């Protein structure tokens, strides 16, 4: 690889240079830095990593996360074709007796931040993380109330054109007021389910957003 390496200094009689020790130290730092980045990016993208890679990444988290190199939570690929990349909508009812849902957020017509949020909601639904989904819904409903949008029922739907013409609901909850400022959400549970699903590793005590 050259890409400009012959742009070196040849003019001055004493070109500025670093000592051999400095160069050696910086070289080691550069090799370590880019090796960790490569490991990080490779593990992040494949989402299937060896145990060695997993342990290595955990060991260097202080460096990678603190300085912002850790991209596990922010995929570097601009499209992955994952199932949660589908278009999604967030709808609500101001009164649960209403028959029609009002479309609030349509990922196809929203800015990048809302698209990231609904993609995140889709990913949580994909992994049965109803607690996380409930927290997002709770934050949205609470904030919406402050913005003057009264929400009595909220629903996240995903478009699956290969399966159906109609969007598929991935989360639906009713809003219950606890007091003047606080609310809780009661998720709608599938008819075949007898108890709410709470992943063991993710269970948090008294998650106010789940209502379960």
């Amino acid at each position, binding site marked *: *690889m*050259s*890409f*400009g*390496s*012959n*742009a*070196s*200094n040849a*003019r*001055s009689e004493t*070109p*500025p240079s*670093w000592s051999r020790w400095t*160069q050696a130290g*910086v070289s080691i730092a*550069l090799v370590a830095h*880019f090796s960790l*980045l490569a490991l990080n*990016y490779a593990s992040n*993208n*494949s989402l299937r990593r060896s145990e060695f890679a997993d342990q290595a990444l*955990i060991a260097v*988290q*202080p460096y*990678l*996360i*603190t300085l*912002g190199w*850790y*991209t596990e*939570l*922010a*995929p*570097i*690929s*601009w*499209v*992955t*074709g*994952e199932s949660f*990349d589908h278009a999604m909508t967030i709808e609500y009812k101001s009164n649960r007796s209403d028959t029609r849902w009002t479309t609030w957020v349509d990922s196809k017509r929203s800015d*990048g*931040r809302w*698209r*990231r*949020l609904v993609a995140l909601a889709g990913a949580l639904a994909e992994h049965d993380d109803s*607690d*996380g989904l409930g*927290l*997002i819904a709770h*934050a949205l409903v*609470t*904030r919406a109330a*402050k913005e003057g949008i009264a929400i009595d029922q909220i629903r996240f739907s995903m478009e699956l*054109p290969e399966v159906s013409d109609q969007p598929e609901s991935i989360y639906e909850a009713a809003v219950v007021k606890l007091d003047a400022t606080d609310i809780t959400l009661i998720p709608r549970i599938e008819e075949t389910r007898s108890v709410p699903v709470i992943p063991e*590793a993710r269970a*948090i005590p008294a*998650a*106010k957003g789940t209502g379960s």
Partner: protein
Amino acid sequence: MFQSFLNSLLLVPAAWDRFWFSAISTRAVSTWRVAVAIVALLHFLSFLTWVPQWLAGDGWFDLETGRYLIGEGLPDTGSQYRWSPLFALTQPAAGYAVCIVGLLASVSLVLGIGSRITPAMCWLCLLTIHHRAPWLSTPGEILLAAGLFYLILDPGRTAWSIKPGFDDGSQRVSAQVALRCGQIHLLMWLLFSLLSMLQHPVWWNGSAVALMSEQVDGWLGAIPRTSYFGQALTLIILGLQIATLFLLTRQSTLSLGLLCLACFAFIVAIFAGDGMYAMTLLAMGVAFLPGTWADARTDT
């Protein structure tokens, strides 16, 4: 033959030193800095429209949701290293403050004021937002943070001294290191992005572009998954990335490589609807600008 192989190995340390540690004119890194700083400026302007409302304690992405989603309290998530002050400062004013400081630092960075302090301030403000809500970060922000970090090593000269014909004669090894880091980082980014894409069947069966068109209301509308146009475009996107990677690693083909990168960025903007990411790609690509290198050589 074995001897020649050994001899070539012995040349590696010298080539390494030449690649990383030969001093170059600071004009090269200054041009790159201005490009990165302008994109940072645009990012902070856009942050003003959402960070205060989203990341306040009672924002659209409130504190409890933020803490839960970084895995707080769970082992091996590294949540303790997410140091954003926005976890403690929950008023919208804190969000505004971070954006405005970042904005002012970006302007200073464009102008070349403040030496290493300004890229450091930009980087800190960007990471403050990123660590508070990494799930909401876009690829462009991650790439921009890398560019800003490398500029801390050497931000070059003041902006008004990059015009052709002006040369203050300063040459630094740190300018070379900063620019090389930016170049290597962008190449790694493109490589792993490409590898990631190739792992998914949609890039092999040609339906990726159609899938993207279904996610965003682009000016081409929804492209049918079976259309030849979509399938051809999918191949072109992959080809552009491969070509960019190949052409940017050769001095004689840098211009072509940058052209491919620009085409790729254009497609990112059109089909993924992520104009900021497209601009960040272009700004990082300025590190390869042949004119910059030519100027650096002229300086010598």
